[in-house]
């Protein structure tokens, strides 16, 4: 290919700088000094980040698939967790908890808070402290004979741990208790659905 004749210089030769940027902006400043929206809304087709219908559909299908597969993983994990039998553990001595009092302990692990209550009708009950709505810790209201979840005004009855009012629909996790020789032992965790 022969050189351009002098009176027909190549495209950019009429301008002062030897090498011009591919894009010439109206304010004359280089691309680095342009406002950020120019990168988001480029004029050149090649720089435009086009999301085609097919790309969008693929994203939606793959994301949905990932969530669906993850559901099975969650189900398997909870199955395995449900099969594990926690070790019995001595919680407290009977005389340590007066009638109507509630203490906060941990069972089966150190990160599983429970509430152990000496009922005014006699006997002991223990529930996992996590509300069955959104896992907020419930607080005892001895004067009402109830447990309250302050997050969304959920209420549980103290004797059975069943939901009475508010968003929670499932009863609290019950801790099976056994009293031997004046010592309260936790012997198991009972997840309840109704």
């Amino acid at each position, binding site marked *: 290919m*022969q050189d*351009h*004749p002098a*009176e*027909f210089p*190549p*495209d950019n030769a*009429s*301008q002062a700088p030897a090498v011009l940027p591919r*894009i*010439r*902006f*109206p304010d004359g400043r280089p691309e680095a000094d342009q406002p950020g929206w120019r990168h988001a*809304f480029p*004029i*050149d*087709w*090649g720089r*435009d980040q086009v999301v085609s219908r097919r790309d969008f559909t693929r994203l939606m299908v793959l994301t949905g698939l990932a969530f669906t597969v993850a559901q099975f993983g969650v189900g398997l994990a909870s199955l395995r967790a449900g099969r594990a039998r926690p070790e019995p553990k001595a919680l407290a001595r009977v005389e340590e908890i007066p009638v109507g009092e509630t203490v906060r302990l941990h069972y089966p692990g150190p990160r599983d808070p429970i509430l152990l209550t000496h009922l005014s009708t006699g006997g002991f009950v223990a529930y996992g402290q996590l509300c069955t709505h959104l896992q907020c810790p419930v607080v005892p209201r001895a004067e009402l004979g109830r447990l309250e979840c302050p997050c969304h005004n959920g209420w549980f009855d103290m004797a059975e741990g069943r939901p009475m009012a508010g968003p929670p629909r499932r009863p609290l996790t019950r801790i099976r208790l056994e009293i031997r020789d004046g010592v309260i032992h936790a012997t198991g965790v009972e997840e309840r659905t109704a």
Partner: protein
Amino acid sequence: MIHLEFVDRAHSIQTVPMVCMHCDSPTCAEVCPADAIKRTEDGVVQSARKPRCIACSNCVLACPFGVPKMNSSFGLMMKCDMCYDRSQAGKKPMCAAVCPSGALFFGTREEVAHLRPRSRILDRFEFGAQTITTKVKLMVPRDSTEPQLHVTGALEAVQEEDPFEEIALEGFP
């Protein structure tokens, strides 16, 4: 899309064709609020993209050359895109292909240098504060020294008087 402009509407039916100049910094795309006007890598500014165009006519008002046209029935701005369907297939744009006098030419610099030995190219246009460099070139006499075309100055010169005033007087004496 090509359209014709009247040179002197009051006295003549002479027209000149106007094609898109395919600016380096396309004003139509700069003002588009829907990000619908795009330029392909060969420097050709395309018609508005149908999924994005909101038919606001900002480009129609902003283009200093008056090129974009709003197609109301489509709700879409359409403009000269150098006949993208033809040029993709290696053909010349329709206007350049059919022009009998060579007023519109599509080809290489070597070809036009051979055809117009007494001309030089001019691709800078001054519209007031805005200077535009275009991909479509104008051929001007080679001995002219003006580096750019002062469009607004020329317009002010011809618009000193109302060109239709005379006609109106002739029609209704």
